[in-house]
Structures are given as structure tokens and as C-alpha cells.
């Protein structure tokens, strides 16, 4: 099949950027979207032009590296699918597509369709961890976790950090991502010691990174390739305000010695 692509080309963070039209005449329905771009890039390289930059790694839908907007939709039109797992059989001959990078103040464009998502790393660094005792490995199932709780933690842990939630959110909010990380750890017994501090620190970092607030539109959960629900956002809000208002101040003894 033959496609017309309008690809956002931008040399760097401070370049203005704009769409460039490409004709791709030889697309096979068996290709993935990224393989189709590989074909385009091969041709551009042979012509001596710069290939279209885009992020990718596993191409199995599990690493979270890939992602851009296709006709205004994060990862394209298919539900629960990263763009590396989107196959060209979902398109038909003559289709015209617009490819844009994730757009958010917190995600500056590196080049073309690739953006810098370090802001996510900083949110995780602020509180997305649990303390683990050193020494010999603990017994596998020493801490009982009810099945329902384990499942819900796992649902949240499915987040691959691709950024589709931010990209699709009209507020460019990182609430689904941050909520997923907080829920993933906060559901489990191992996540309890840091639970209060985690919500406060991760929400504060999210604000510092210049993400917008959440108005619960629900666009993110429809765009999420892992189908994470906005329930995690409500949970984050609850953890946040309970901790902000009621978390225990350090004991007098700790304050004196510290």
C-alpha cells in the first residue's frame, strides 16, 4: 500500500520545527509502524537526507521507549497498543497520516519525534522506591499478600513509563504515571514504610517538572497502552492529602539527635 506521511521534523530543542510530507509507496501490511518508518529512513539515508529520529528499543510493547502521536492519538488508533506493536494492516492504501512528538513543557523535543522524558525519572527518584534490608535473601513468601491486592498492585505496575498519558492529557498532566507508581508500591506491604513520604515527594516533584494538574477527563486511561485506570489518580490524591495533613511529625527524640 501507499501512504502519505506528514512527519514533524525538528532539529533540536530550540528549533521551531514543522511538518514535512513524505510519500511511502511500498508499505507491506505485515510491517509494524516502526518498521514502516525504518523503510522510509533507509530511503532518506540513501538520498543523503537525515533520517526521522524516533525512540524505540524492545519493539515488543514492554519497554516504554517508543511513542509519538499519529493523527493526534498517542501510539495511534488501536487500544492497548504501543506504536511498535501497531501493524500496518490497520491502515489502507492512500491513507494520509500526521506524526507529531509528545508535546509537553516537561518533555522537550530532542529531535523530530524523540522527546526527553527525564522528568519521569526525577519523579520516580523522588519517592518511587522501597527500602530493602541487606543480608541474606528473605524467604520468598514470608510476607502474605492477598491475591486481590497483589493483582491491583500488578495492574498499576504494568505502567511502562512511555508518556502517552502526558501526551494525550489536555492538561499535560503526569497524574496517571505518578498515580500508577504510587499505587504499585503503596498496595503492597513492602511499600508501607515510605507510603506517606512517597506521595508527598512524588506529587511535589511532578509539580516542579511543570506538568499540569488533573481534571479527570479520562483521556489518559484510553490512551494508556497498558490500560491503567484513573482509579490510581484518586488513590494518589487520597494518599497525598492524608499524608499532608496527618503524617506524624518526627518524634522529639529523633529531632534532638538529628
Amino acid at each position, binding site marked *: 500500500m501507499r501512504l502519505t506521511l506528514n512527519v514533524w521534523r525538528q532539529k533540536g530543542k530550540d528549533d521551531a520545527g514543522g511538518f514535512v510530507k513524505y510519500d511511502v509507496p511500498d508499505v507491506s501490511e505485515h510491517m509494524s509502524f516502526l518498521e514502516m518508518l525504518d523503510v522510509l529512513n533507509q530511503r532518506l539515508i540513501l538520498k543523503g537526507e537525515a533520517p526521522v529520529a524516533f525512540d524505540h528499543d524492545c519493539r515488543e510493547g514492554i519497554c516504554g521507549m517508543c511513542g509519538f502521536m499519529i493523527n493526534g492519538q498517542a501510539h495511534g488508533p488501536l487500544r492497548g497498543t504501543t506504536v511498535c506493536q501497531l501493524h500496518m494492516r490497520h491502515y489502507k492504501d492512500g491513507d494520509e497520516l500526521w506524526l507529531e512528538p509528545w508535546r509537553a513543557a516537561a518533555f522537550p523535543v530532542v529531535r523530530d519525534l524523540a522527546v526527553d522524558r527525564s522528568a519521569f525519572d526525577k519523579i520516580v527518584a523522588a519517592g518511587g522506591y522501597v527500602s530493602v534490608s541487606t543480608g541474606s535473601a528473605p524467604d520468598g513468601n514470608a510476607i502474605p499478600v492477598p491475591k486481590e491486592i497483589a493483582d491491583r498492585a500488578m495492574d498499576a505496575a504494568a505502567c511502562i513509563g512511555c508518556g502517552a498519558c502526558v501526551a494525550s492529557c489536555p492538561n499535560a498532566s503526569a497524574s496517571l504515571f505518578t498515580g500508577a507508581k504510587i499505587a504499585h508500591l503503596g498496595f503492597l506491604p513492602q511499600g508501607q514504610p515510605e507510603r506517606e513520604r512517597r506521595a508527598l515527594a512524588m506529587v511535589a516533584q511532578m509539580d516542579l517538572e511543570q506538568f499540569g494538574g488533573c481534571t479527570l*477527563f479520562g483521556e489518559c486511561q484510553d490512551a494508556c497502552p497498558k490500560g491503567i485506570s484513573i482509579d490510581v489518580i484518586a488513590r494518589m*490524591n487520597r494518599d*497525598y492529602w492524608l499524608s499532608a495533613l496527618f503524617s506524624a511529625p518526627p518524634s522529639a527524640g529523633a529531632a534532638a539527635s538529628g
Partner: protein
Amino acid sequence: MSSTAPAATQRITLFYQDYVGKKVAMALSGVVLFGYVIIHMAGNLQIFAGREQLNAYAQALHANVPLLWIARIVLLLAVGIHFYTGISLAGASRAARPVRYQVKGQRHPNLAGRTMALSGLVLAAFIVFHILHLTTGTVQPAPFADLRPYDNMVNSFRVIPVAGFYVLSVCLLGLHLYHGAWSMFQSVGFNHPRYTPALRRFAAVFAFLLAIGFSVVPIAVLTGMVR
């Protein structure tokens, strides 16, 4: 010696600084306004019980002056917090996406949610007009008499643009609450697989009832059912 534990006032300011704190402020001020509009609508509907009933109800509300002023101050605070926080959240969203998408491809139809700031701004204009019109009588599209709401409503809702603006505003109030009366629960984290879908229905039902309940009064006057 400086302590690391924040004092109570510090906690509140720190709380409000982060966006989740702002959302809680939105929800708390929103729930006050939500409760108020329900009571307000119940009051208005007494117009169908006749002139004496409605005017007596208004006079009874005004009889207890301290209570009246407490209610007014609480409402003013709620509107002030809600307005200021709503505007600042909307501003933060704009700043979070300085370069807009050239092609839009919304997946999740959510007219009410996406127009919160717009419906809110019209409501703000409406609230100002409404107070100047039927509380203070400063704006008089028709003759105004203090504490005679039956006569004031009947006289001014005969003016078509006035009745039209009221109907439009209360429909937008319905739209605002169709999303808001559900999302306020999520903002404070009241979420449960069993109750969250029920809350959606709760919001839809109340939004609809409020839009209808408020609209019937100007419509009844316009059509001559109430005169």
C-alpha cells in the same frame, strides 16, 4: 531550635501549593456550592405554590440576620476559593503545553469535563449578574421590590433576554456538575470499584435535575403559567 515538623498553618500553605492540594480545595469549595444550589432550587420551586408562600419563605430566610450573614460569608469564601483556584489550575495546564498539537484526535468524549473552565467563567458572570439583579436590585430590567422575589421574578422573566440568560446559565451549571459532582469525589480520593460507577450516575441525575429545576421557573413565567 528549629523543628523539622511543619506547623499547622505551614501545612495548609504547603498543602495548597501542590496541585493535589488545589484539587482538594476545588472539591471542598465545589461541594459547598453543590449543596447550596440544591437548597436554592428547592426554594425557587415554591414559586409554584403561589406568591404568599414564596415571599414568606424569603422573608423567613432574612429574619435570622446572623445566620444569613454566616451563610453569605461561607458562600463568598467558597466562590472565591473555587474561582481563584480554577483559574490558576487552568493557567497551569496552558503552561504545561506551550506548543499545541496541530492535529487533534480525542478518544474519550467528555464535553462536560473539557469545558469546565468555560462553563465556570460563564457561571462567574452569571453569579455577579444574578446578585445584582435579584438580591440587591441594582440592575433592574423590570421594577424591583425588596424581599418580594415572586413579583421580581415574574416581572423580569417576562423580559426574554433575561429569561434566556438564566436558562442558558443553569444549563451550563448542569454541564459543570455533570463532570464536577463526580470528579469532586475522585479529587479527594473517594474511589471504590463498587461505588465509583454509582457516583457517575449520582452526578448525572443531579446535573439533570438542577438544570430542569432551575429552568422551569423562567420558562413558566415566559409561557404565562406563572403570572
